[in-house]
């Protein structure tokens, strides 16, 4: 019988003892909580609670897109910019269908399929024509701009009068809030209802994605992104799995686009602009704060990261310290600085890790 040496436990690497990991986890959560509390106060304390509810709601609607970005950038090693176009495509399909009388719930899977097709095209173009993923995805996202205009019919379409996935439950929920928390809190009812409903959607989707990633096909997909050479030696066509993964990721983004359009009450062909930054921010913040070690932990982490990111953006827009406010035009700089700070903290912490 042969013996192979066991890896030496290192002090700063990922093989920390359980106690060390808990200590740094507590530290991370404590710092994050402290930051959030500070933001809360800077935004005006209790009167800003409406902003918080709305930020969490928006964060949750975008979180399936964050899972999509995580999938392409981290799991498949396929940097994919199609998401900006497919997010708007999800919204455009929703706008078109709802103005033609379809139920808001029906638009969700249709948006998923439409955007997944866009991702499919990016994947095929990249693998078959051997074009770098960035270039292929930029080309597709540019083409999608025209497609979205055709689908929506105009660059901006109000949807308030068509209702949304909230509509069947709005009145009942308002009554519930009124009877439980009083008249004063009724104005938060819609935001809270959105948090609850979208939360349910996100949890279901996350569990399905996690389950798929544990399956034979999902495992092959992950390995195709991680170690294509090994997969080819095992007789698998890595291209097929990568393409399927890109399609899945964009489908998730289109789903988010549909949710977003319904929640915000309009669909705009430009609503995907800046989604890549948001998705990457969600991934970075999620990985830094929650330090996931398994894939199910990672999908939960990026959902959390997106919510935190949206809270930060809302804070930048509304913070008021002794009369000082950020101009809306400064918000992009603020979010960039936030991302840099998060990345800096991550580097410092993980000097010895893989």
């Amino acid at each position: 019988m042969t013996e192979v040496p066991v890896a030496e436990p290192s002090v700063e690497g990922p093989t920390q003892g359980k106690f060390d990991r808990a200590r740094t986890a507590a530290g991370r959560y404590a710092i994050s909580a402290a930051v959030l509390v500070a933001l809360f106060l800077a935004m005006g304390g209790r009167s800003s609670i409406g902003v918080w509810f709305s930020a969490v709601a928006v964060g949750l609607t975008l979180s399936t897109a964050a899972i999509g970005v995580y999938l392409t950038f981290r799991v498949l090693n396929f940097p994919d910019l199609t998401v900006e176009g497919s997010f708007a495509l999800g919204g455009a399909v929703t706008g078109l269908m709802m103005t033609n009388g379809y139920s808001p719930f029906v638009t969700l899977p249709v948006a998923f399929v439409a955007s997944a097709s866009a991702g499919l095209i990016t994947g095929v173009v990249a693998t078959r024509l051997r074009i770098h993923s960035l270039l292929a995805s930029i080309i597709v996202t540019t083409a999608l701009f025209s497609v979205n205009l055709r689908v929506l019919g105009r660059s901006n379409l109000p949807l308030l009068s068509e209702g949304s996935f909230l509509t069947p439950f709005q009145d009942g929920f308002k009554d519930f809030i009124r009877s439980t928390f009083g008249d004063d809190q009724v104005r938060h009812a819609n935001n809270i209802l959105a948090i609850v409903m979208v939360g349910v959607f996100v949890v279901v989707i996350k569990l399905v994605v996690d389950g798929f990633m544990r399956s034979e096909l999902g495992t092959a997909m992950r390995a195709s992104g991680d170690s294509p050479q090994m997969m080819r030696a095992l007789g698998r066509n890595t291209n097929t799995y990568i393409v399927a993964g890109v399609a899945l990721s964009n489908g998730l983004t289109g789903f988010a686009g549909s949710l977003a359009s319904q929640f915000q009450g309009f669909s705009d062909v430009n609503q995907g602009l800046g989604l890549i930054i948001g998705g990457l921010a969600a991934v970075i913040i999620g990985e830094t704060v929650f330090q996931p070690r398994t894939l199910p932990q990672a999908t939960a982490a990026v959902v959390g990261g997106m919510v935190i990111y949206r809270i930060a953006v809302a804070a930048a827009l509304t913070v008021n310290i002794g009369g000082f406010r950020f101009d809306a035009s400064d918000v992009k700089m603020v979010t960039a600085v936030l991302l840099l700070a998060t990345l800096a903290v991550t580097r410092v912490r993980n000097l010895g890790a893989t």
Partner: protein
Amino acid sequence: MKQQDERRPRYLAFGLLAMLGALLLGACGSDTDESASTTEVTTEAEAEAESEDEGESEVEADADAAAEDVTVGLLNLVQNPTLIAIQEAFIAELAAGGYVEGENLTIISANADGDFASLPTLVQSQIDEGVDILAITTTPLLQAALNVTQDMEDPPLIVFNAVTDPYAAGIANAPDDHPAWIIGAQMFPNIDVTVELLTQLYPGGTIGYLYNPSEANSVAQTEELERLLADTDLTLETATITDSSEVRTAAESLLARNPDTFFYSQDSTVGDGVAGLIQVANDGGIPVITNDPQAVGVGAALGVVVEFEENGRQTGEMAAQYLDGDLDPATFVIPRTEGFYYTINNDAVEIQGLEVPQDILDQAVDQTPEG
């Protein structure tokens, strides 16, 4: 090992079919307006032309003056009902002036659909087609047109409408000090009337105001608002945005400062995202008052709307007079479209809790959606 080879072409086919399907869906689903290409525009001008044929000699005199065929290029920034109505009023007035599409008038129309990068190209392509008049709708297009034509020896006449403030936009210095080939009618909102209304409704109150400081028009409107408010006892709380998706958060933050009403003027970014503002207003029971012609139909309570169709009509008249030879662009003084009307959404008034004075109720145009 065959299964991988079989799956690949299937995926490709599925993907292409789906994209095609999306395109077809779009082609079927979108309304009759066409976009981003040069097309012919059919208007009510033809109906007017028919009645004119049976008309009296004065009309024939006009028709005689318009003997030659003229080409007018119509350029628009986005598809929205207000801008389209302005263009249609322009065309109708041209027809009333004897220039009828299909008879002695050719119209080339293009819509940028929000793609700012392609504005100069659109302008240039219409100039290359030999238009006699460029009818420009919205400020960004006007700026692009100025850029493209300013070094030309013989530029076509530019007539602009739906421009809130050509002076702030750098097109002209004053109504009588403008490039010789550019004329039009300014469509500035009636902020003075609105401020009066606000002082009447909420004496000593707080206004929650939104705008996008990157729009030159909005900056001009905001300055006018602040100037007028200085003489009142109203407090202005402002939230700025740069993107339509920020409207909701801005509204929420304004709500935290306890306004008596929300207000925004003619800002297209807020207009695009107005649904977010309205949802917050509905939830919080705070009214939305606006100068935006479209917002009341979407869910704002009360609108003080400039006569935008008059703006289109005025500019159509200018174009007709120019073609008749009765207008000298170089000495022309740019007017401002007078006239406004109130619009009201009764459902929103109720949900948002606005007490509308009776005289306004009597004259307001009802834009409450049906159903």
